[in-house]
């Protein structure tokens, strides 16, 4: 069963299969490239739309909100033809009653030539909604106080009900740009493929070189087309701003600056990445493609798991990687977030290296405790003559079955200074109560450690029990006949045979403990002064407390690299993993 068809693993697959592989690889580069370009352009165009809406809105407010003045403004500015803009106006300038909104909507629906145009579906929906909200807002005596924090709904409501809410209303009513970016990518990939096929049609040539050239071509030309198209849209927005400035005069204020974000760096990096990826992946992926044609059902069996994982784990991960290079205004800042973490400027209130040290200490102590307690209990429980061991075993895995955030909160209560059982126990021993979760690093850390030890030893116990079961009894008899004592038998028989099961469990346990968010966050919460925070809770703090998502993403990426390096360096594990592969 399952022999490799085609035999030789190093033989180059057929050119057509390789071309398909190159197509997939190029698409994998151009799709996020297109996504990025669209995002950049959308941001600029949205900024321009906002500015235009604001400028016209100001004009409307200044000229009075009666129907005739409104009509005149709308006609002169030609605002009615821009769907996103008209939705905004309905809310900013519609007045506070249903009639006012409906009238504005009708006016906005007039085209530049004075003929009515059909309202877009979402716009007519919004008109109805806005009317309803305006009515209820006026009824409730809405003042616009909740304009900032009330979420999108509240902003829209305020925008309708109060002139002061106009700005917020513009923010809420802006539309996304849907640019036709699909075709340049498709066309360039097709062109590059034709080139690749022509260059590698002869069997036996190295496919890497033409693949790299095809990648360079597709990446470069695709990026150029994207940049060119995006530039066009931004320029068009700029032109609209200029003409609006001319119409409205100085009252409109100065238009926003549009930074050329899709520049040379974008084109070069897309081309280089495409070339490298195509060259590196053409052979391997080409083999997958040809294997796929022989045995599609095999790949169909893996596809659901693979597609789900790529879409919901890898795509979010790479989106997170992208965010690690942005600041809070979504501007590209290069490695600034990483520098902020690794070489803090002094304004930062925690030290990465201290946190890393605490994390390593936390992980080591926990894993040692888990293995020591788990293995110890397993050794006791694996005695055949021990009575009631089934009951012990069932009771001892209770912590595993309970959701760990519940465990963490329960232990937070146990360590409570006034009414926690931990201090009641100390009182029994005649020891003064300890302020466990107070100002001391040691007590906070101990509380976390005890909680996580309670939580984690059953897993190691079960793994050890399973591994002990599989050790043949005659090995011990042989060792005993050779005169090995109890310790020698444990050292030379039990331990080596436990290794294959324990090492992967320890690696897994290390990764889990390294990222054990719930316990640290819920028990000590980092007290005192974030000192007991581990890396993952620091990342969360950057996200929730400092509200710096780029910094949080950079933290997460550093955690990922540490864990990846750990797994690679643990060469035993690599070997264990390899033995699983084949």
């Amino acid at each position, binding site marked *: *069963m399952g022999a490799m068809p085609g035999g030789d693993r190093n033989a180059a697959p057929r050119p057509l299969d390789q071309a398909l592989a190159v197509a997939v690889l190029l698409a994998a580069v151009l799709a996020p490239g297109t996504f990025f370009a669209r995002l950049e352009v959308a941001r600029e165009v949205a900024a321009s739309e906002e500015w235009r809406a604001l400028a016209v809105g100001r004009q409307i407010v200044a000229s009075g909100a009666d129907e005739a003045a409104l009509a005149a403004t709308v006609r002169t500015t030609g605002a009615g033809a821009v769907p996103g803009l008209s939705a905004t106006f309905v809310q900013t300038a519609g007045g506070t009653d249903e009639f006012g909104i409906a009238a504005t909507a009708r006016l906005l629906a007039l085209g530049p030539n004075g003929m009515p145009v059909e309202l877009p579906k979402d716009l007519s929906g919004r008109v109805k909604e806005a009317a309803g909200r305006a009515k209820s807002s006026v009824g409730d005596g809405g003042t616009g106080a909740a304009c900032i924090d009330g979420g999108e709904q509240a902003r829209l409501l305020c925008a309708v009900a109060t002139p002061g809410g106009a700005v917020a209303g513009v923010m809420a009513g802006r539309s996304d740009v849907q640019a036709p970016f699909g075709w340049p990518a498709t066309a360039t990939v097709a062109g590059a493929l034709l080139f690749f096929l022509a260059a590698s049609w002869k069997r036996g040539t190295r496919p890497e070189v033409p693949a790299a050239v095809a990648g360079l071509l597709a990446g470069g030309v695709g990026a150029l087309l994207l940049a060119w198209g995006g530039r066009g849209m931004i320029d068009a927005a700029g032109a609209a701003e200029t003409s609006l400035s001319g119409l409205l005069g100085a009252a409109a204020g100065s238009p926003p600056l549009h930074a050329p974000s899709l520049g040379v760096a974008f084109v070069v990096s897309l081309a280089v990445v495409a070339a490298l990826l195509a060259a590196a992946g053409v052979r391997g992926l080409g083999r997958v493609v040809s294997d796929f044609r022989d045995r599609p059902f095999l790949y169909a069996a893996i596809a659901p798991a693979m597609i789900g994982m790529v879409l919901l784990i890898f795509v979010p991960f790479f989106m997170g990687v992208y965010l690690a290079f942005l600041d809070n205004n979504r501007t590209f800042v290069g490695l600034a977030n990483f520098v902020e973490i690794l070489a803090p400027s002094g304004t930062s209130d925690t030290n990465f290296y201290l946190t890393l040290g605490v994390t390593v200490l936390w992980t080591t102590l926990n894993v040692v405790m888990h293995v020591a307690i788990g293995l110890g209990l397993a050794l*006791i429980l694996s005695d*055949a003559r021990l009575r009631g061991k089934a009951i012990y075993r069932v009771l001892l895995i209770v912590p595993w*079955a309970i959701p760990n955030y519940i465990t963490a909160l329960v*232990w937070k209560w146990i360590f409570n200074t006034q009414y926690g059982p931990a201090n009641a126990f100390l009182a029994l021993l005649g020891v003064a109560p300890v302020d466990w979760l107070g100002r001391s690093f040691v007590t906070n850390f101990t509380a976390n450690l005890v909680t996580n030890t309670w939580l984690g030893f059953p897993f190691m116990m079960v793994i050890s029990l399973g591994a002990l079961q*599989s050790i043949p009894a005659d090995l011990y008899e042989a060792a005993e006949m050779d005169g090995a004592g109890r310790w020698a038998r*444990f050292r030379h028989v039990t331990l080596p045979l436990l290794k294959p099961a324990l090492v992967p469990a320890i690696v897994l346990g290390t990764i889990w403990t390294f990222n054990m*968010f719930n316990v640290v966050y819920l028990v000590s919460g980092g007290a005192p002064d974030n000192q007991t925070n581990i890396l993952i809770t620091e990342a969360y703090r950057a*996200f929730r407390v400092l509200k710096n998502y780029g910094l949080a993403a950079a933290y*997460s990426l550093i955690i990922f690299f540490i864990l990846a390096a750990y797994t690679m360096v643990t060469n035993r594990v690599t070997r264990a993993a390899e033995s699983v592969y084949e």
Partner: protein
Amino acid sequence: MSDSNPAGRKVSRGGQATRHAVLVAVTLVTLLPVAWVVKMALSDSQSFQGASLSPIPEEASLANVAEVTGSTDADGSWLFGRQALNSVIVSVFTTLFGITVACTAAYAFSRFRFAGRRAGLFLFLVSQMFPGIMMMIPLYVIMESLHLLDTMLGLVLVYSTTSVPFSVWMLKGYFDTIPKDLEEAAVIDGASPIRTFWSVVLPLSLPAIAITALFSFMSAWNEFVLAYTFLSKQSAFTLPVIIRNYVGEHDVRWGLFAAASLIVSAPVVALFFTLQRYLVGGLTAGAVK
């Protein structure tokens, strides 16, 4: 359990007594926190002034349990029932979907050699190292653009895909330990690969499948952070989210928290103990073959 005794064969009566003493002590430490939670849930007060070590409930009031289970929304419909149903549906479908997908993939990885196999297995392994916090906002954006926020389908999709890599590795390890001869015999008798898998491999793998299913179910039933992020409507909440209602920033209503914790934990603990006899075999067979 096996007959081997790794720590030594000759154990005196005194040795046995020491062992029981150790086991009883550890078991007590293990069970005390649980007993305290029960006590807390059955008591009438919320704050527990005056520390006590005794795990024996002083009162047996069901007021906390009644308040947790009796919650209703503005329209007067039974909110807790709705939320419990959400949890059941999400967890059951996560398990079914996740196990089906993981079983087929793990079987292919275990029995066939094909191009991209190593890379595929490696990707499953790497995906376990991504910190969840980094994915939260991107996942939210993806869910939003697919209109899956506040839906059970969204949770099922996220939960099952995040549990699949671990399931695939575990099941593959277990399938590896099943001798191929059995399947070859079935193939010679003319059975298709699907039929072979269904009637030969699957029955032999029940311990591993049971344990994988248990883990999938537990992770979905207990998951809190993503549910808290994706769900904004009370009627869409799963049970872990409601526990948060009782644990405020400064004010924790311990009695209600304990009652809710017991109610949320009970089904998953019951399931865990039903399947625990598979735990040892299902978890470790792949690693110690």
